[in-house]
């Protein structure tokens, strides 16, 4: 990056920090200092800090923080990975074979408009309030974007690349492995990102409806206990975990596609 670029980056970072600090100060003044915002409705920075300490060391809603985080993350990973393991190949097949597309599409069109969260009650009826129901809903949520985007990735491949591949004599498996998948990979990763987002949202919602452990469960308990500080702790960690997973996916994406212009 050029010198000017560095300065600009530094300038923006300073502004960002300044804004966040200002927001923090505002938050503190409105709550602790002046009490304009009542403690029943929102928490002060101090209270949030205390709540965080509490849940990390003593626990809240039957477990310590790490246990809740572990629960939520595990469920998301499980549902997400299963969904893409089925969704991406299906998307590839639908993108490549008009027959597959014709056959599967109607089912898709029927199921797609139903928001993933709307599956939660059905999952609970079928599988109860345990982990299985949550994984099912996460699967449904993560499945659709991965299929659609993989499909789009195949369809948007430059025709010349496909013609070149045929001209070079690539047979079916070589073609899929060395041409189709790498060619569709950018779109596939977009789908993965959307799937991960959907997984996370769905999990939190499912846990809010009913769960033993998990960040959503923390939120739910804190709401019932009228404990705004704990709600905030829960929300912050929902954001942190979601952000961390997204970042991780971004790293995988970078390594999976070393040929992309930076």
């Amino acid at each position, binding site marked *: 990056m050029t010198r000017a670029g560095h300065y600009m980056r530094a300038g*923006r970072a300073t*502004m*960002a*920090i300044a*804004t*966040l600090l200002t*927001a923090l100060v505002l938050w503190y003044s409105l709550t602790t200092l002046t009490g304009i915002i009542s403690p*029943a*409705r*929102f928490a002060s920075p101090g209270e949030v800090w205390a709540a965080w300490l509490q849940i990390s060391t003593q626990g809240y809603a039957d477990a310590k923080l790490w246990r809740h985080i572990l629960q939520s993350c595990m469920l998301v990973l499980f549902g997400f990975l299963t969904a893409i393991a089925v969704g991406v190949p299906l998307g590839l097949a639908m*993108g*490549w*074979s*008009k*027959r597959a597309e*014709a*056959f*599967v*599409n*109607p*089912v898709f069109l*029927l199921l797609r*408009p*139903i*928001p*993933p*969260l*709307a*599956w*939660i*009650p*059905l999952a*609970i*009826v079928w599988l109860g309030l345990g982990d299985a129901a949550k994984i099912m809903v996460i699967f449904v949520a993560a499945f659709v974007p991965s299929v659609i985007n993989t499909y789009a990735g*195949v*369809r948007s491949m430059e025709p010349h690349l*496909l013609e070149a591949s045929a001209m070079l004599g690539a047979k079916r498996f070589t073609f899929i492995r060395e041409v189709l998948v790498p060619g569709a990979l950018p779109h596939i990763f977009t789908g993965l990102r959307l799937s991960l987002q959907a997984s*996370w*949202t769905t999990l*939190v*919602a499912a846990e*809010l*409806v009913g769960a033993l452990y998990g960040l*959503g469960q923390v*939120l*739910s308990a*804190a*709401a019932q206990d*009228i404990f*705004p500080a704990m*709600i905030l702790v*829960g*929300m*912050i960690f*929902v*954001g*942190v975990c*979601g*952000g961390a997973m*997204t970042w991780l996916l971004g790293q995988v994406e970078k390594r999976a596609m070393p040929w992309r212009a930076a």
Partner: protein
Amino acid sequence: MGNALSAKQFWLLSAAGFASLFVVWSVAAVSGAAPAQFLPTPWTVIQRLVELTQKPFAGYTLQEHLWSSVLRYLLGFGLAAAIGVPLGLMMGWFRSLDHIVSPLFEGIRFIAPIAWVPFAALWFGTGIGGPTLIIFMGAFPPALINAYRGAKFVEPRLIEAAQTLGASAWRVIVEVLLPASVPSIVAGLRISAGLGWQSLIGAELIVASSGIGYLIVKGQSSISTSTVMAGMIAIGTVGIIIDVLLRRAEATINRRRGR
């Protein structure tokens, strides 16, 4: 791509796919592999759907629940659009505003809208405020981001052309920047509408005493699977209608601009 299909083959295969779904469903339901409570036949679900429009369940008929939901949805979506679009445009045009708002926005973005439910419950109870807040949190980001992108990435040549023609700053904004951002804004609103509808359902599962999400949750607690499925169909249908309407609007706007 792959082998080409004739139109006839395409429709045949589509019909086959469609039919297989219903066949598998019906067979599974009728064979008794699962208790009738858990897996009603497609026909039962349709019957229940019709029934719900006549007999109230969980306090209201299906239409009344839907109307409740739609009202909250329009309120939340309307607010998200009314705040998000102008704010996004201004962030795109005025760098300083961008620098101030972006960090805050980035910080909050990762928190799934549904995580606001506890606060929604705390602040608004089960009235209209709660679900509206969630819808807003869901619909706001796409509206903002797309307006922002539309404004920020206006082709510089258009602005230069306007300026060399002697346009004042105000004119540039109103007659160049705004029209140029419209496609992005409209696309953003379409995404926003979809996400808003999804967030609504989530919210109504937890903090509502009426609405279509409330209906299916009540159906679940009474283990009336046919109610749950009927509700899901209703939700999906409304979702499609919203999407189709917005796509039509988008297409009309794009056509007027000669795309």
